[in-house]
């Protein structure tokens, strides 16, 4: 699974993208976040306040209960502030 991080999530995690082998048991965005948090301090800091994290799958905004699949591009970012 290709994972992207933007803004302060990128800074906490220390990279803007990575490709990870995510276990088959991870079916939803919520489960993916819980699994990532176990990977270390940077992830824990990035996802500490879950209400401030938005998610996109294959470049579409999604909710926490959206399904994730092996070859998806999943992006994590703060609420957007363009314009």
């Amino acid at each position, binding site marked *: 699974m290709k994972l*992207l991080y*933007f*803004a*302060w999530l990128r800074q906490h995690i220390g990279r803007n993208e990575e490709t990870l082998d995510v276990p088959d048991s991870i079916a939803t965005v919520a489960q993916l976040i819980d699994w990532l948090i176990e990977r270390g301090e940077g992830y824990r800091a990035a996802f500490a306040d879950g209400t401030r994290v938005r998610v*996109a799958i294959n*470049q579409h*905004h999604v909710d926490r209960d959206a399904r994730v699949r092996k070859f998806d591009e999943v*992006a994590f*970012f*703060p*609420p*957007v*502030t*363009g*314009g």
Partner: protein
Amino acid sequence: MIKISIQREDFDIGREIALLRSEHKSVGAIVSFTGLVRDSSHGEPLITMTLEHYPGMTEREIMRIAENAHQRWNLDGLTVVHRIGELHPSEQIVLVLAASKHRNEAFEAAQFLMDYLKVRAPFWKMEKRATGEHWVDARSSDSDAAARWER
């Protein structure tokens, strides 16, 4: 006619209007919105504002908003130019143009585009001030502005 450009370079509103008009002869009304970098934030002078985005998704998300606007109003053209990278106070950030035969449709479409761009398009602003670097927080007033179109 929808034009979307995410770019580092500055833009020229006169040139963008000319481009939009060159594709449609019978335009009666054009509304523009230009967003600029302010000179202060949280009571401190602003040194720079850096815009990060999600390449690919940004263009797709803005296209979805623009297509939605085309369905709601009778439009002759839409242009969205959004800058990324490091900007200084009073530099231009974003330009939206909406062209229509009727002024109210152009006004509403431009406002709709800005309201949704603010809450849907994946851009993030980081401000550099004397006290350091600060990510800009999303404002609930922007969510409210977008929500009123769903009524």
